């Protein structure tokens, strides 16, 4: 049976982990299969959980989160017959499949929507922990916003520098309010649990929020402009479906693979005008065919559209 390990924050974090959970559940519902799962509660458990699953015969073992990079690197060789799938990080081992997303592309799309929806000409971003991955979100977002409206001002803030930054909604709220006072009226968050506070603050203060990872439009209907989808669920679903035949190597999922995108549903239908929709769809096509190149912060740790 396959197994999945959720990162700190738990499978109901309304974003990253929850998306992974949804993928696993979909697989279970469709195939009637069973899977083992565990929610990590501390860093020390990573290796322990990996080993326990490997020893109990689970295969493949999917883990959601870049923090597994080091422990997986340590143990993968000990279980050559087990396949591992790591999401959001690259581990180079013969029995590991690494799934990474081109988050900058999805962020670019929602950045365009943000700039077009903004009445003040200022949009903002709240990141969780200040790491290159999150800067990648911010950078793509800024580029997209500037593509839609070259005069737009983009404000970006990070919640903190430790994992606690993923789970500090109070700070998320305050950052959002600070951004509002600087003129922002659309805010995009890539901040895990902190993002809950961001969306709440946006809804409370006549701003538009933008969700991340999973479709978060439902959280405050009519007040969430869209969500940057990162199809962790697809990655998990695919891994579970492939089972022990998972292909080792690196898979990079972008707009063209439908790995990232933006969410439209009845909750935000009234917020996105047909013109806006047309513009992003055009950009989407452009990214897919390579006519639009979105800068990847992690490729050179720099961002042309934004200074941190």
């Amino acid at each position, binding site marked *: 049976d396959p197994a999945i390990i959720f990162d700190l*924050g*738990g*499978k*109901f*974090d309304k974003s990253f982990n929850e998306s992974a959970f949804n993928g696993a559940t979909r697989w279970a519902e469709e195939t009637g299969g069973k899977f083992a799962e565990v*929610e990590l509660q501390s860093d020390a458990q990573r290796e322990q959980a990996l080993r326990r699953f490997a020893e109990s015969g689970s295969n493949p073992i999917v883990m959601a989160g870049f923090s597994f990079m080091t422990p997986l690197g340590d143990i993968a060789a000990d279980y050559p017959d087990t396949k591992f799938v790591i999401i959001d990080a690259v581990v180079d081992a013969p029995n590991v499949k690494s799934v990474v997303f081109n988050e900058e592309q999805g962020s670019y799309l929602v950045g365009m929507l943000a700039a077009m929806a903004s009445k003040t000409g200022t949009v903002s971003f709240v990141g969780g922990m200040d790491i290159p991955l999150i800067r990648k979100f911010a950078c793509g977002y800024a580029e997209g916003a500037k593509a839609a409206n070259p005069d737009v001002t983009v*404000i970006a*803030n990070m919640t*903190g*520098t430790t994992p*606690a930054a993923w*789970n*500090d*909604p*109070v*700070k998320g*709220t*305050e*950052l959002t*309010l*600070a951004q509002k*006072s600087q003129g922002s009226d659309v805010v995009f968050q890539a901040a895990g*649990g902190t993002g*809950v*506070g961001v969306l*709440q603050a946006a809804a409370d203060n006549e701003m538009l929020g933008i969700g991340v990872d999973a479709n978060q439009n439902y*959280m405050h209907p009519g007040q969430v402009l869209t969500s940057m989808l990162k199809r962790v669920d697809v990655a998990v679903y695919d891994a579970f479906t492939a089972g022990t035949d998972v292909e080792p190597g690196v898979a990079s999922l972008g707009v063209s693979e439908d790995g990232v995108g933006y969410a439209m549903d009845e909750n935000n239908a009234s917020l996105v005008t047909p013109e806006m929709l047309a513009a992003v769809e055009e950009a989407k096509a452009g990214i897919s065919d390579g006519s639009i190149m979105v800068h990847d912060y992690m490729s050179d740790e720099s961002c042309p559209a934004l200074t941190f």
Partner: protein
Amino acid sequence: MDLMTLLQLLDSTVRLATPLLLACIAGLYSERAGIFDIGLEGKMLAAAFLSAAIAYTTGNVWVGLLAGIGASLLLSAIHGVASITFRGNQLISGVAINFLAAGLTVVIAQSWFGQGGRTPQLAGAARFNPITLPFADALRDVPILGPIYYELISGHTALVYIALLIVPVTWWVLYATRFGLRLRAVGENPAAVDTAGVSVVGLRFAAVAICGVLCGLAGAYLATALQAGFTKDMSAGRGYIALAALIFAKWKPWPALGATMLFGFLQALALRPDLIQRTLGFSVQTQLLDALPYILTVVILAGFVGKAIPPKAGGEPYVKER
């Protein structure tokens, strides 16, 4: 820095200082009565959880508030029984209470809502909403004072105003009433109170109970006013900062207001690195800003900025002796 930015910063200060203020005054009652309380953190956390959970289930934030106070009072009762009735070590009891709250809130939240130790988001009447004070809109355009009134003074939740009101009330209770005299006495010399025919145990339990109520308010504020729901460990060390503020304030109500506002301001400032950069011309490490309340407290404790003398009988269980 322009006026609006400053107001926004101060507005944020008030919001962030409110839980500190409530917890600090809570600690003040307890410690003035001679019961040290490092369990402020745990009580806040428990109250935050139960207030959010009940507010969510009933859809009524006031019921939630009562439940939060109840949770905090329960932990207060444990602290009271341990440190007053059984004359245990108050510090150890406080440590235990912090762990108890940190563990139980998650265990219960997980089995209740199954959302990883979180409550569902609160909406509408299930949370405290900002109150617009009379004439705020009308006066908004008056220069200087208008924005101050509209942005800074108006537009907070009821608990903020309650917290601010508690400061003068506490001052009055402490220095103008019989209860206050006895409370201060029992923290200085419980034997004097005992031989004067007043129950030391009763007074101390009363103080610990007041502490519980105020911590309950602080916790409920976190989960139902500042935020719209409970998240694991959401008190995030505020109980300890409140304790630090209490020392900073030398166990007095008005200075407690000042100290908590200062610490709130530091927290607000830490969220605005851009402002610091702009005003000072260089950037300050956020880690330094985060640690500043603690560093300041150590400096105060070291006696470099005036000595903080705690109530004399503080921390000692009262044992009758002739």
